[in-house]
């Protein structure tokens, strides 16, 4: 594509044309497009992508620069595999730029002589390929375990019989391992290829997100694990065949958190009828096995939660309380009263209408004269609160007695009876200090589902405007997941964690103090989590949102967390657009990204 661009008349013109000259002739949108196009060509040159030969030369230099080259074993189980797909899979391994690999092919008793002969021929043709032909069909876990036993590498990766690796896949893994030799697990982004070899559906994943993994089987491929860790985890469990790799990863994650994500597509997943890649309803049994695997994992972790299938979206699990578990946590609701009394009345009415057991403590902080008469509410008044939400919420927190603080904006309305139970449930997960639910507008579109940092906006609401009942991006809507920040419009935080970071910073005059709190929690290794349930309605107009914008608060947040913002949000893949946290493709960045891969057939 780059070569075609350079050779086109436009491409020849671009490097020599000062866009300022064109400004008077072309509309700004066109100028913007040309500027991005020129940047694309320049980056392409810098990345040395002009030709396969140049890429090979660059790869050779990169391999030579590695401080060590650990052997990476690849396990490839086959079962009644179409020969052309198997050949493509093996060829993608043989084409690896990184030389230190071995391929272990295990046939799971296919009983197909042609396939057996093909596998033996592949092994005979390359000393790096081993094979074992199992006499009986034992299932994919059994075959994978047989493969594991033949591995001699320090690390082991997994390749399905009809999938393909990108040529740089193992090199990228080796580079990650060189950068941090303590890593036990490396995983990458992936996409799909159809039977016609058309690439589609890139899956751009977050950095390691164990809570997200409870709801969505997101790790997938490419997955490379230290062999000793894979063996210690016990290999694959046949009871979970069809989701065996997901269940295996849950057990691996119980042994190590040295898990690294490479935000590059290194794996092409073949979407053929019958595979999960072709559609989430293509494999039977997953709806039972997935929550079963997650529940077993949660039990091993000692968490008082279990997983159940999402009521409407396949291959998504949501959390539920463990049967019979007695709740020990309590939430104190803290509301910084705004000027509109009607908002507060609606919120209080909706809270008490849920008849939550036990009845939550409700604290409303208001300026002098702002106290109401509702005796179920503890009223706190202070002259200094004014519009300073941080101060008001700190005062409310100081008066609270619950184990958890639940900050609410007056414009909210509670609609789910088990709302507090759900929030406390997610807060009970290991390492979680803060939980924020989905905030939904009256038209059932999403106001926010967590907050991402380091985009064009330093803190951007995630999935804003999306369908509240949709799947979001690979389960980002219906599944709980780690986020970098939450809004105090509705945030449950453990009182202990809140106190450990000194509460909200009152230097923020009216906003950003909530995101700041989440960053300070993160500094202590405490996580913030988005919970898909409960949902709360938010009655806030766009005009009110604009009026609330405080540029000094925004700058203060940027100043305090500059390095974090520069690094970007670990839970929001860098290949997404920076314009909004809506998981949209990244414009020219995505084009460059694609330029690094074979271009044929990209759609």
């Amino acid at each position, binding site marked *: 594509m780059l070569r075609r661009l350079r050779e086109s008349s436009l491409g020849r013109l671009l490097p020599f044309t000062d866009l300022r000259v064109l400004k008077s002739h072309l509309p700004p949108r066109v100028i913007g497009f040309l500027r991005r196009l020129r940047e694309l060509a320049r980056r392409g*040159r*810098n990345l040395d992508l002009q030709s396969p030969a140049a890429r090979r030369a660059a790869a050779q230099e*990169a391999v030579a620069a590695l401080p060590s080259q650990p052997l990476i074993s690849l396990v490839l189980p086959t079962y009644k595999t179409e020969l052309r797909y198997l050949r493509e899979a093996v060829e993608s391994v043989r084409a690896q730029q990184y030389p230190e690999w071995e391929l272990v092919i295990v046939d799971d008793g296919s009983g197909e002589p042609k396939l057996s002969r093909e596998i033996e021929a592949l092994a005979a043709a390359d000393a790096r390929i081993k094979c074992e032909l199992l006499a009986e069909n034992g299932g994919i876990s059994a075959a994978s375990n047989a493969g594991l036993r033949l591995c001699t590498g320090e690390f082991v990766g997994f390749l399905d019989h009809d999938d393909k690796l990108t040529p740089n896949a193992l090199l990228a893994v080796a580079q990650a391992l060189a950068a941090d030799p303590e890593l036990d697990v490396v995983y990458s982004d992936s996409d799909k290829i159809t039977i016609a070899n058309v690439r589609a559906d890139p899956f751009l994943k977050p950095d390691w997100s164990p809570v997200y993994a409870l709801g969505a089987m997101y790790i997938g491929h490419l997955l490379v694990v230290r062999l000793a860790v894979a063996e210690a985890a016990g290999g694959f469990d046949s009871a979970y065949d069809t989701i065996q790799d997901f269940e295996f990863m849950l057990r691996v994650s119980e042994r190590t958190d040295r898990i690294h994500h490479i935000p590059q597509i290194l794996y092409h997943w073949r979407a053929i009828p019958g595979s999960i890649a072709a559609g989430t309803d293509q494999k039977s049994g997953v709806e039972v096995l997935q929550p079963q695997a997650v529940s077993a994992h949660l039990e091993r972790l000692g968490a008082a939660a279990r997983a159940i299938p999402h009521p409407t979206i396949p291959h998504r699990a949501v959390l539920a309380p463990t049967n019979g578990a007695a709740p020990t946590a309590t939430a104190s609701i803290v509301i910084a009263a705004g000027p509109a009394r009607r908002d507060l009345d609606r919120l209080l009415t909706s809270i008490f209408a849920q008849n939550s057991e036990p009845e939550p403590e409700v604290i409303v902080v208001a300026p002098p004269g702002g106290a109401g008469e509702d005796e179920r509410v503890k009223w706190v008044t202070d002259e200094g609160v004014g519009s300073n939400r941080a101060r008001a919420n700190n005062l409310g927190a100081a008066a609270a007695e619950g184990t958890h603080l639940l900050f609410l904006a007056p414009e909210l309305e509670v609609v789910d009876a088990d709302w507090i139970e759900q929030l406390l449930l997610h807060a009970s997960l290991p390492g979680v200090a803060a939980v924020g639910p989905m905030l939904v507008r009256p038209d059932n579109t999403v106001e926010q589902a967590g907050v991402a940092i380091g985009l064009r906006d330093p803190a951007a609401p995630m999935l804003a405007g999306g369908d509240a009942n949709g799947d979001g991006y690979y389960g980002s809507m219906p599944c709980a997941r780690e986020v970098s920040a939450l809004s105090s419009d509705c945030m449950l935080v453990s009182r202990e964690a809140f106190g450990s970071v000194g509460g909200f910073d009152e230097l923020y005059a009216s906003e950003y103090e909530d995101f700041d709190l989440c960053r300070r929690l993160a500094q202590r290794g405490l996580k913030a989590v988005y919970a898909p349930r409960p949902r709360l309605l938010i009655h806030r107009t766009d005009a009110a949102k604009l009026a609330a914008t405080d*540029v000094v608060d*925004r*700058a203060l947040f940027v*100043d*305090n967390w*500059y390095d974090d913002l520069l690094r970007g949000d670990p839970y929001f893949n860098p290949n997404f657009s920076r314009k909004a946290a809506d998981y949209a493709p990244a414009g020219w960045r995505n084009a460059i990204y694609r330029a690094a891969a074979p271009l044929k057939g990209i759609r």
Partner: protein
Amino acid sequence: MNLVFVYFGPLDVNSGIQAFHFGNELTDLGWNVTLAGLGDPRRIEAVGQPKFECISHDDLDAKAKQLAGQGGETIVCAWTPRERVRKLTMKLVGELRAPYTIHLEDNEDYLLESGAKMTMAELQRLPLRAQDRLGTTELIHPTHYVEFLRGAAGVTVITEELNEFNFGERPHHVARPGIDTERFDPDRTPSVTREQLGLRPEDFVLVYHGTIHYANQHEMLSLYLAVKLLQRRGHPVKLVRLGHSEFGGVDPRAFRGVSDGVLELGRVDWQLMPDYLSLADAFVQPGAADDFNRYRLPSKLPEFLAMGRPVVLPDCNIGHDLTHGENALLLKQGNAVEIMARIEELIADPALAARLGAGARRFALEQLSWPDNGAGLGDFYRGLIASPAASATA
């Protein structure tokens, strides 16, 4: 003895002023000095009248022939290991068969990493051709600069911490700049008045001069924001800023949101700088004691100190030689909140401000003398020329 400074940029900006002063001092000590800069060498006249020859980079070939012809010992000083300087220096020393030294004044790794948004380890893992195509000679080459430092006869550093980059463990010398304490005089009568700039008598004025660029955007945001926070807390603080601005960083809008309280004067004649500095009630050099600031000595700091006003600066580089509460206020985090707190201390305690200002001036007089620091540099060069190791590297 001949000395050729190969300076990385135009001669009238940044540390070109230091090169100018070192050149004059060494000329007084009997050295035959040449200073080669980017572009028109007459730009040095904006700083002052040099006692030595200033040339353009384009004239270095001719200079090499001239020096080779006239004989005598020569040493070449590469002012930074940046790629343009490296290439020019290697060509020059090849022709003259002379030893070279490298002057380090910044954490060059940090500058390149900030620009490329990759770590140095990642950059060095890139294929050489990709490194070549990083696209600039204004910064270092990830691989070549290491070789360049290893091959030097000696290394001069503006602050001791920079000796960490002396990869060849060559002899090194701390070449601290000086300050013209007569020009930068606290009691001068300035040609610019507060009234002319619309500043009120009750305003607490900060003056800062220097470019805003990608490497210091964050700390400049901290300074701008600190002023805004002080104003929000009711303090009549004003920031007068001189210099070019390239607002960017992670959130350009954050800059825009806090820059309305700053009096931006743009570039001004360097000769007028003491006049503008004399308007200040205090100076702030923003920044954390981080990988950028730990290794540099901003050229404006000696000027701030000489002006006899309280100076707030990071607890690193020259900050290590100053004493918090005696002759400066030192920043640990360097963020807006900390700067705000330090300025509030000064506003609340005029006696503290006066004591700090007097202490700063005293430090400048005692530690930042051009004749003393120039003589020290000359002795170091002489030692290198005389040493057998230097002959071996020539």
